[in-house]
């Protein structure tokens, strides 16, 4: 089948998509957008998190066909004309990235959080990121990074 949808503001067409393919597979293997990661492909780790029509979803749980005609934004689409997004800067600066395999998904999820909640409490950060596994950091620096990202974002407003 053919799937047509918008990714990071650009219309994309994927041809010869097999019905069983996930949005994650199409992004990674057919469109070459390898930012979203494939740590479990079962909806358990959040490493594949992308925005679908503005809401964070696990791209591994979305059938490619479900993306037809919709808007997808991936980690590759977080940075703007003014450089890295606040979450990206903060993660890099706060030591929230080690192996980085969890990072793309965490960035999308954290970006969504600080967009909805400008000054999240630690409890709110933990709740929002509860679906994103990180095996390297023990999450302390990730909490630092999300607090910092909220500050950076507020400073840009």
């Amino acid at each position, binding site marked *: 089948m053919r799937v047509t949808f918008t990714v990071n503001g650009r219309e994309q067409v994927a041809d010869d998509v097999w019905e069983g393919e996930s949005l994650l597979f199409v992004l990674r293997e057919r469109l070459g957008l390898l930012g979203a990661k494939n740590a479990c492909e*079962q909806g358990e780790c959040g490493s594949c998190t992308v925005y679908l029509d503005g809401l964070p979803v696990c791209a591994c749980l979305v059938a490619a066909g479900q993306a037809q005609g919709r808007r997808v934004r991936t980690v*590759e689409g977080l940075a703007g004309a003014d450089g890295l997004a606040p979450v990206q800067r903060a993660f*890099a600066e706060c030591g929230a*990235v*080690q192996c980085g*395999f969890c990072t793309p998904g965490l960035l999308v999820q954290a970006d969504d959080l600080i967009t909805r909640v400008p000054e999240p409490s630690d409890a709110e950060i933990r709740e929002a990121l509860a679906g994103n596994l990180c095996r390297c*950091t*023990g*999450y302390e620096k990730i*909490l630092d990074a999300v607090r910092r990202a909220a500050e950076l974002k507020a400073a840009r407003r």
Partner: protein
Amino acid sequence: MTTTRAPGDVAAPGRGGVGDSALRPDGTLKVTGEFAYASDLWIDGTLFGATLRSPYARARIRAIDLGPALAVPGVEAVLTHEDVPGRRLYGLDHADQPVLAIGEVRHQGEPVALVAADHPETARRAMERIAIDWEVLEPITDARAVVADPDRLRVQERGGIVRHQPVRVGDVASARARAEVVVSGDFSVGIQDQAFLGPESGLAVPAEDGGVDLFVATQWLWGDLRQIAPCLGLPEDKVRMTLAGVGGAFGGREDLSMQIHAGMLALRTGRPVRIVYNRYESFFGHVHRHPAQMRYEYGATRDGRIVYATAEIVLDGGAYTSSTPNVVANAASLGLGPYEIPNLEIDAYGVYTNNPPCGAMRGFGAVQACFAYESMMDRLGAACGLGPVEIRRINAAGQGSKLATGQVIDSPAPLAEMLTRLEAMPLPPPPDRTDLRNLPGGVSQATHGEGVVRGVGYGVGLKNICFSEGFDDYSTARVRLEVAAGEPTVVVHTAAAEVGQGLVTLQAQIARTELGVDRVTVAPADDRIGDAGSSSASRQSYMTGGAVRAACAAVRDEVLALARTRLGAGDDLSLAGGKVVSASAGAVATIADVLGDRTVEHTREYHHRPTVPMDPVTGQGDTHVQLALCVHRAVVDVDVELGLVKVVELAAVQDVGKIMNRLSLEGQIHGGSAQGLGLALMEEIVVQDGLVRNPSFTDYLIPTILDTPPQRLEILERPDPRAPYGLRGAGEPPTLSSTPAIVAAVRAATGRPLNRVPIRPEDLCRRCS
């Protein structure tokens, strides 16, 4: 060759020498999604490789019919052990693991056949059509039974025991007669998985010279190469290894996974082949932490001084040797921890079974024993009427003390001081019960505070740094200094694996400090330079750090010699801030001017001090290069009605000799502690009759951000004069000590014995038992 993605140089811009919290040079690539992990590599025309694995723990293969699989359109190759071009067995030190099963399988998930196809789904369908006639056999799964009867219970021809390492010091029998207090216990540890997030993956590209280029996520390029080349029937120079982006490792990438398989498929099809495991396959694709069964007995004087200790430690290695012999050595030599014990008997065994294969995982043989000896310390303290800190302080080893092996600790080991500092750290306030998120069970509303009890516990861990027992795990570094665009620029090249721990950052920091240059690039790790050893045993800061420093020193010497000849300057020169600086006259020239268009390049090997194997009868010997300590305090809230635990805080004191980069060091301690938390409370590969019951992140739980508490750290710097910059390896010790601290805290809250990790709810709740 047009790779759309390949590992590239990471330029490390800006400042940040040794001791600074320099930022990761690959950080920007990682936050933009551009960093090329092994599972992201792609070349036009690449085939998808897949692995057919055994569904049984032990079985004979009577016949395999590949015909139906080969007939599937889109399938390019189906291979079995008969297609292995070279040696059919491989292994880290002892080659006993078949590349593909030869007539029989010895564990569930053992690779049997390979498929290369144009789509992963095609490959999956083809695998379904491989017809195997199995004769299923009764698996050997009881490690203790193997120790008792190793000749009968054989998974391997050579017998049931991989290694038995005794340690004998003093006279236990007469000390036992003198002891005023005796405590004993049986402890066990379940199988823990590394659960790195980036699945095993890589790309093999056939080359025109008949060789193959491999881009893989590994901990040890040269260790891989030495196993891969003979199996592919190629000389080592025809197998070219490049490190692809690694999504975490924690020991799980020390053994091979898909490397030889992808190489075989690429050589056979003449096309690039990529293999990417999914999470289910990953649980079968790498070795795990050895499960352990342990029996301990301590005798002491009434005032808490240990007079003797005995320990029996049985480690189940699964079907193949892997690193079990070295895991046994760690369990034996570190099996009683950092305490002074005059009389002791330790017997550590590693055995073969048909359970999942086990090998390296962060903490490597020291983790299991640590849970037992720390549980024993608490038990002994209670029997003597002493608190957990006091009993440890009374028996604490320090610089000058002897380990169980007789090796004298010859650099700082400030255990007693660390415990005192840990105890002095402020405790967290009681939970704010108005917010359910602070209580065990959280927003699932398991409790509103009723039945919640707080507990505090302590744990101490002792880990060896670098490879032990006579292994010369040297590292090699090449450093080049030249002028680019008017600025002095350094390129550092090693074969050392960056697995997330921050080694690329550290290499750049060292080059900046040693050469006084800002612009440093770390070239991709590959085998065009000599061995760097494995990214394991907390050894890369020490070993590759040492090699980079040595190569930098050689480069610096040449530049300074050049400066003296060209400028007629004196002997008091050094490099700083891009300049040649004279102690007497200040800056005398820029490095750029001294170099001109010259390139200065040096390669150096760095070796640690020699060690010896443990004596096979007494276990004595100077077997370790360096030792490292971490101590933890855990505070938990337990819902004793439902058996739910919330870890409220972890506090740690660790001595690292020298803080090379505080930001990444803290990250290592946080992450290592969280893995210890996982082992204490949730992580276990559940095995029944040799079969894994929970190979997914749905059923194998690792700590989420809700499970992982705030961590309070105090980091000491007591330099080891033998180590580069005085540093002490730091990645593993926190993984040891957090587990027993958490278990002790849960014991304090519940009064339960808790002799097994991970703790299960049924071990805790009043109503379940």
